[in-house]
């Protein structure tokens, strides 16, 4: 009986449903491409279609997890959860604004989201190798002096595409961790299937 493994499975499950990140990442990428009016993405209808696709995808993915892995209600740690969520939102929204206001030669969006992601994962479930590699790469890319005038819309839109891609990649790897976590429960087969 691995107590720690059982407890981690329950506590980490909500955070490792990585496929739920795919619609969000997709929308960020589509937003960036749409803003840049790149090729067919200048069509507003395409963006509207993307929103519908993302919302539909989110609903289907949620049902996939409920059907195949079930659901848990995390323990209420109200103050910590509220503070964490507020800090995350402030970081995501305020970070780019602050970096742009200070006229720093970084991509504010990429740097902010990378820092918030690294802190979020380290607090929620502990950083895994793929978190460090993906968001470390986004952070480094955001800090490189290649963005010209960071306040230009192209810089922001490329940032959206980079962050959206990182979110999708992280989601896929998180889902893989989830699958392996449950496969190990089944393979161990150490639980009693004998009625007494």
């Amino acid at each position, binding site marked *: 009986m691995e107590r720690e493994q059982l407890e981690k499975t*329950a506590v980490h499950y909500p955070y490792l449903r990585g496929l739920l990140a795919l619609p969000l990442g997709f929308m960020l990428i589509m937003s960036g491409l749409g803003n840049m009016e790149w090729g067919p993405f200048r069509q507003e209808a395409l963006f509207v279609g993307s929103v519908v696709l993302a919302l539909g995808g989110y609903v289907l993915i949620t049902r996939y997890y409920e059907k195949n892995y079930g659901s848990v209600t995390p323990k209420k740690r109200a103050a910590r959860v509220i503070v964490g969520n507020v800090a995350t939102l402030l970081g995501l929204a305020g970070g780019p604004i602050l970096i742009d206001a200070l006229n720093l030669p970084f991509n504010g969006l990429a740097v902010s989201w990378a820092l918030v992601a690294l802190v979020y994962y380290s607090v929620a479930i502990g950083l895994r190798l793929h978190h460090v590699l993906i968001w470390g790469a986004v952070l480094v890319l955001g800090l490189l002096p290649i963005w010209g005038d960071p306040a230009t819309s192209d810089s922001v839109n490329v940032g959206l595409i980079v962050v959206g891609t990182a979110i999708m990649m992280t989601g896929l790897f998180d889902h893989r961790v989830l699958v392996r976590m449950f496969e190990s429960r089944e393979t161990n087969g150490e639980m009693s299937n004998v009625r*007494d």
Partner: protein
Amino acid sequence: MSETSDDLSLDRLIHEPGRLAILTVLSSVEAADFVFLQRATGLTKGNLSSHLSKLDEAGLVRIVKRFVRKKPNTNVELTPEGERRIADHWDRLERLKGLAQSSAEE
């Protein structure tokens, strides 16, 4: 001070591996549904149902059956008694482990 046998006696209802796993999972969350408990513990549906019934009869868990999008859903949570007993049980197991390690070192 030596531990008495009562201090270290294991709760037979909880010590069964399947039920211990169920209660350990539930001790980490507010509630979990049947599908999650089945996947997390590796128990078959029949055995999970049987164990949950025993735990419910003993007052260690509360089972709520409802419909979610017209499909039956079973949600399970620990009662305060269940929380206390699983915490006590793991505490006793840790103390037994400590005693065993001390004996081995002597």
